[in-house]
């Protein structure tokens, strides 16, 4: 049996005096489509940053693909898509092709040029997100939803085994959010890419995912979405904390 792609054991993290994560343990298996839910300030983005090695936990251990994260070298196996709003300098003078090709930098390695197949790789990645017609367009001319698709293509171009996405639908209008999640579900189903995603879109996303984790400093629930769906609103609200209310999107009713 394959090792879990992510295995977190007893992780805690503090921002100065404030506890952000408290004794978190969880596993992400190959093929999962995991949505991490939780209110603002619940530690979702912190958890993703720990998974990505951007910050170190104060306690606990993390294994990536069965290897201790300190010794994990194959970072190109993990694609990362951050929130659009803080991910890049708007107005940056680059084409979609240049941005997506940047996703091959780590895979190519230091002191080496991008592979000769870069053009085909970029086109393949853009095709999988339906953006192949935008190859030579300037990234700053695109809408929020289109930019986010390009960033997914950048994460896909190195052919990762897993994508980690931090609230990827921030700044995207509701109609396009549905199509966006459909595209992610297709990547999970057809390309067998494991997905870990932080999101607030509880109602919209539930149909497309396989697993749910409810986080509020600690893990309150982690299991199959079917189990999650059988829970009452009161039970869910108790995990989310009293300051959070459940939002029902108009027309999104799942």
């Amino acid at each position, binding site marked *: 049996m394959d090792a879990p792609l992510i295995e977190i054991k007893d992780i805690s993290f503090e921002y100065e005096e404030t506890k952000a994560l408290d004794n978190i343990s969880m596993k992400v298996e190959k093929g999962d489509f995991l949505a991490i839910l939780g209110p603002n300030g619940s530690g979702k983005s912190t958890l993703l940053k720990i998974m990505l090695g951007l910050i170190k936990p104060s306690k606990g251990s993390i294994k990536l693909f069965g290897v201790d994260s300190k010794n994990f070298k194959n970072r*190109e196996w993990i694609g990362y898509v951050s929130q659009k709003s803080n991910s890049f*300098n708007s107005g940056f003078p680059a084409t979609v092709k240049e941005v997506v090709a940047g996703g091959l930098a780590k895979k190519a390695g230091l002191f080496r040029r991008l592979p000769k197949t870069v053009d085909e790789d970029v086109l393949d990645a853009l095709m999988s997100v339906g953006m192949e017609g935008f190859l030579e367009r300037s990234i700053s001319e695109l809408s929020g939803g289109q930019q986010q698709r390009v960033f997914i293509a950048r994460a896909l171009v190195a052919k990762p085994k897993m994508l980690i996405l931090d609230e990827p639908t921030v700044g995207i209008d509701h109609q396009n959010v549905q199509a966006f999640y459909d595209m992610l579900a297709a990547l999970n189903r057809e390309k067998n890419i494991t997905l870990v995603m932080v999101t607030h879109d509880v109602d919209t996303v539930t149909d497309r995912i396989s697993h749910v984790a409810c986080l509020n400093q600690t893990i309150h629930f982690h299991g199959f979405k079917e189990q999650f769906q059988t829970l009452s609103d009161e039970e869910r609200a108790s995990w989310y904390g009293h300051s959070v209310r459940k939002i029902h999107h108009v027309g999104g009713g799942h």
Partner: protein
Amino acid sequence: MIDAIFTYEFLQNAFAAGLIIGVIAPLLGVFIVVRRLSLIADALSHVTLAGIAGSLYLSQSVAVFSALNPLFLGIAASVGGSVLIERLRTLYKHYEELAIPIILSAGIGFGAIFISLAQGFSNDLFGYLFGSVSAVSREDLLIVVAIAIVVLAFIVIFFKELFVLSFDDEYAKASGLPAKWIHFMFMIVTALVIAGSMRIVGILLVSSLMTIPVAAAMRVSKSFKQTITLSIIFGEASVIAGLISAFYFDLAPGGTIVVTSILLLLLVLIYKKIVVSVKRGVIA
């Protein structure tokens, strides 16, 4: 003019150094501008001033320094300043921009003290502040050539990493690129370019040769590589026109180069406005 270049060594030095700087300053400037680090170039140029002024002062009283090209102490101060800026940015994580006024003020402060202590190098100092056609020695030219080799090698070797880091530094770190080290090397290289450019453009105007051609290029470029190409073309045009006018009208080249680059920027802005108006007219 061409006869004069073949006749006088100082003109050969000035033009050769100018042509090299016209390439490396805007080339590095593209990364500086898109990473929003333009003011760091200003801070480093003022630190370089402190190094130059210190060297000129010491040359009056310490024998070793009288034989030393002031550029060396300028380079040392600039590189030291870049390291200090990085340390301060780490220290003030939530107020990273504080590092710039601190280092800039320190540079001017030390510079002012050394200038006051030593009297009698006003001509030299004017050349360092605003550039000089006549003051570029063969040794200065060789230093500029060495700096250019380092800069070009750095950009060619780390181009893909620099692009990713400039576009999205969080993504660069998350994908496992050695972002911290590449940024550190980038700061050192920036310090070298600033120190190397100042003989021609002058300390007070060096950051403008790294930013104004880029500002013009960004208005009309469609891609990152095109931005680099156009920035270098605008930079070279500014240096050549600036040096020729400085020679003929006996002006400080820093001033003529920067004014030329501003004129080019204005032309580009007008061109862009016309193109946009025409497109809107066609669509309407």
